[in-house]
């Protein structure tokens, strides 16, 4: 067991990323505050990133994995910027960023 922990391999990284993914999904599903939901989204994107980097390090995927990782970071930043702008606008309209209070549209 100790030996297994001392020498990190592909499996370790995949486990970490799976945990991170689950935490992100849980935040998205359970949190009512929009900002917290967006943080969950960031966790999901970064868990995919860990996968990419791990595969690029431990399999013969090569640099493609790291390149994809870089692009994902950029996409995540762009998405976060747009999302925060939209949340700011929501706050101006509704005076709240709680998902339960923002529900004009239903049916």
């Amino acid at each position, binding site marked *: 067991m100790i030996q297994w922990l001392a020498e990190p391999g592909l499996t370790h990284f995949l486990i970490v990323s799976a945990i991170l993914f689950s935490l992100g999904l849980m935040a998205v599903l359970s949190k009512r505050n929009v900002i917290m*939901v967006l943080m969950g989204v960031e966790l999901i994107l970064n868990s995919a990133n860990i996968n990419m980097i791990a595969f690029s390090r431990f399999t013969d995927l090569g640099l493609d994995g790291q390149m994809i990782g870089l692009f994902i970071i950029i996409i995540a930043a762009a998405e976060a910027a747009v999302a925060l702008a939209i949340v700011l606008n929501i706050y101006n309209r509704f005076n709240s960023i709680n998902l339960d209070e923002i529900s004009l549209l239903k049916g």
Partner: protein
Amino acid sequence: MVEQTLYSISQFYPEIIITLTLCVIIVTDLLIKEENHTTGWILLGGFVLAGLTLMLQFGRNESVFFDMIAIDPFSHFFKALLLLTGIFIILFSVQSRELNNYMHRIGEYYMLLAGMMLGMMMMVSSSNLLMLFLAFELTSISSYVLVGFTKQTKRSSESSMKYIIYGAVSSGVMLYGFSLLIGITGAVDIYGINEALAGGTEHALLLNISILMILVGMGFKIAVVPFHFWAPDVYEGAPVSIAAILAVASKIAAFGLLIRFFSVSFIDAGGLTESGSWQVVEGIHWNQLLGVMAALAMILGNLTALRQDNIKRMLAYSSIAHAGYILMGVVILAGEGISSVMIYLFIYLFMNLGAFYVVMLFYNKTGTESIEKYKGLGKRAPLQGVALTIFLVSLTGIPPTGGFVAKLYIFGAAVSAGWIWLVAIAGLMTIVSLFYYIRVVRNMYFYEPEETAVKPIRFNVWSNVVLFALLIPTLLLGIYFAPLLEFARNSIHMFGM
């Protein structure tokens, strides 16, 4: 390397033209002080020019930019459809009353529209998972902002927030699926994935999980059950022109992406079955999954549409149902299926844009989107009333409209491939759909207008021209569709299949 890149650029003119148009719009927006739709006309010119350069490429079948982009008849067909939709959307936007309060920012609107179009055109032609994801996000991020463009209204803000949350989560899940797929196969382009899977795989379970995750993202974009929750809210809150582009162009692009990704990656290159259809890679049953999703979408979309009063919401549920019908053509794994999907999308473009257009015209004049308040509109605006009736009848699929031909081919292809249960559900649900489409027509014609509003509504000539441009193809394609058939059958060739 340099030659390959230079040659690739020469095959990339439509996208380059749209990118340049985007830049020109930004500059024009800075220079021009008047608040009018100049930037919109510039974008229209850009789309037309891109369409012309696209025509020069017809017939080519190759892969450029080091297997990142495929230039093949399949992508040409979808790009042509997307540009056509884009042109109509601009013609809608310049007449839209909702945008009038935002004329000081209208340059941004058209700039984002150009960005969205660029993303969608790359979605249908990208053959590399990274490129595919970037195109997907380019489309999504532009559309998040466009949905919330009328930001003074509460419902527009709310819908854009819902859209970005659902969108970001589902594209995140899709990305995780991509990362697993890339890890298992060790390839980032769809041809490499196909090669790696050719001899079967020992990670069948993990592969199926990754496909499920990828389906979350793609299912979100085509708005198919169970990833449809955003569609009704977003369509209701967004400006009508944006709801129309989401219902038509975004869906067309997502279908192009889905068909290319699944057919090239997960079809066994070696074999056809005895009946001449394709075979999935062993152990990966993505077509069964899609079949179940199609059935759910048809049932849920049609049944929920029955209870709607807001017409945009009703059209949203109807578009979910149509996504189900179209998916039916994808699951049957044959060239016939792909060509019937293309025929359906082509006709769907005209009839659905037409329905949204009349909804927008009525909203411009009466300010209502409620089906109950459509009472008597058929008498107050005869031409628009008749047009909406034809579009809705076509959406139902009754002859002699285009919608009938579309449904005929897709149902026929599914029957001959042996998906009888799916066709039975589709047929039954088509009958259900008649009720909610005809309810609009009944309200328009079988009731007298309310006493406060009996005056006829006048529309200008220009709006009628656009109306006829949508109405004539919808009717014509119902009786004369041989060229479309020919075009679709010639366009099913994907690079690498």
